[in-house]
């Protein structure tokens, strides 16, 4: 079941991040971002769907994407703490996206040569999307870091508050020993290079946290995730067995 668990971790990362980004819809700082953010949310939710679907098949117990997304509680969710962090402000949101995409781009690139064809297929689509997310979020991190005094302060705050969630990205989690998925630890250097390139231009400095927060992979989350899932699952759970 290692592959099933590893797929769930990945799927949960994408769905939870997509949910957070989608919370901006209609409330963005400008109309262009009201289009760009749903776009990014759609990308990661699309990937989550493919991953849940495949996880359900691997498990072979007849669970589909909705059973996996809507009928597990917060202790069963296996996403990274980073992706469940609240939106806070536009600086936090863009930095969270950059951190995630800077990880997933090399991850999916490595997965392109996976022996598993389904994973290869998912990676092929996701790798292009993640390149766009790095570009889009990265450009914002630069604009905000090198913008006004206020934006620079907010950007620096975001770096402060999100960097403690970076270490968890590189934990192998359930994927330990699953040879059709890339090693997560091996991605650290490339992740750091991408983030440093953006930070240099933005006038920001990255410092690895000495005390990284972890626990997402074992279902020990922040307090926000339970609220997110309560909202996300409310209609689905109120009508057991209904189709939509």
């Amino acid at each position: 079941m290692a592959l099933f668990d590893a797929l769930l971790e990945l799927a949960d990362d994408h769905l939870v991040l997509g949910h957070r980004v989608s919370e901006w819809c209609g409330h963005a700082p400008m109309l262009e971002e009201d289009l760009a953010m749903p776009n990014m949310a759609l990308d990661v939710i699309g990937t989550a769907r493919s991953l849940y679907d495949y996880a359900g098949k691997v498990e072979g117990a007849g669970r589909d994407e909705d059973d996996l997304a809507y009928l597990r509680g917060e202790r069963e969710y296996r996403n990274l703490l980073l992706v469940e962090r609240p939106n806070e402000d536009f600086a936090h949101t863009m930095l969270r996206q950059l951190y995630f995409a800077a990880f997933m781009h090399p991850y999916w690139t490595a997965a392109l040569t996976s022996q598993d064809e389904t994973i290869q297929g998912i990676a092929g689509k996701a790798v292009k999307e993640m390149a766009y997310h790095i570009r889009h979020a990265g450009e914002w991190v630069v604009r905000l870091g090198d913008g006004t005094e206020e934006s620079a302060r907010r950007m620096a705050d975001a770096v402060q508050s999100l960097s403690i969630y970076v270490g968890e990205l590189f934990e192998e989690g359930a994927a330990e020993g699953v040879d059709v998925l890339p090693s997560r630890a091996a991605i650290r250097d490339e992740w750091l290079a991408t983030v440093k390139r953006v930070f240099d231009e933005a006038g920001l400095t990255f410092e690895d946290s000495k005390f990284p927060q972890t626990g997402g992979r074992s279902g020990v989350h922040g307090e926000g995730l339970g609220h997110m899932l309560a909202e996300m699952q409310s209609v689905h759970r109120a009508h057991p067995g209904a189709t939509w």
Partner: protein
Amino acid sequence: MYSQGLIGADGRSEETPEFLAAFQARVDAETKIEPNDDMPEGYRRTLVRQIGQHAHSEIVGMLPEGNWITRAPSLRRKAALLAKVQDEGGHGLYLYSAAETLGVSRKQMTEELLDGRAKYSSIFNYPTLSWADIGIIGWLVDGAAIMNQIPLCRCSYGPYARAMIRVCKEESFHQRQGYEIVMKLAQGTPEQKAMVQDALNRWWWPSIMMFGPHDADSQHSDQSMAWKIKRFTNDELRQKFIDATVPQAEYLDLTLPDPDLKWNEEKGGYDHGPIDWDEFWRVVKGFGPMAKDRVKARKKAWDDGEWVREAALAHAEKRKARAQAAPMAAE
């Protein structure tokens, strides 16, 4: 999503009779009017209002539907709803661009929306109270929008007509998607059926009010018709909409909340019961159940985003300054 019978535009103009006649002749010959063409001030003003109201409607319309993105009951529906709300934002963007060709900026239009000077479609001042509302809005509200907007694809003003062609394709996709949501609910569990009937009961009358006042009470229609901004009257469009929708409701065994709705053989269309115009005007005048909340939400997004917009400008300035300084430093 939509343009309502225009509210409060003043199409009067003071140009010479010769100029107006020549303009009318171009319109009558179905020549598209383009941004750099001479046009009566009243024509320009009417279009600025109408396109602006339409753009604002798309943007405010993101809120009631956005209210269900985080609760959509399946991942497929969640993705489709996100895409739909994003489309509406895109419609807003094309429409603001079309209005900008008439010499008003998006910023100016946004400020008018936020301080209450500009109107948007009243339909968005009703709350979305269940998942079924998302289906009903797609079916009825996007459906009514299409009835209004298909003739606008032939509007005499070129940029508006072209924006509408693109918008209409997406609106008809939204309408089908909405009907499909409704169909699933209507064929679902008793609770789902009750949910969708309740949503239909709440949205039916506001939807048919979207076409605006009866022709006899609509002040601005005649000039807009003559200028071929508008091609059909409010009542004509409303009739088409009702005639198209009644069989769709019957097919799903849903009841439209109008006991007077019946087929009129002689006119070849449905008769409907009296519309509550007091409610219509109350909502148009800004006393709809969600009016204050909608504008407040838009204003909050705009105000909260100000530092982001300022930062983007400041950064662009800094870049420009650095690019100008760089070659000199190299000398």
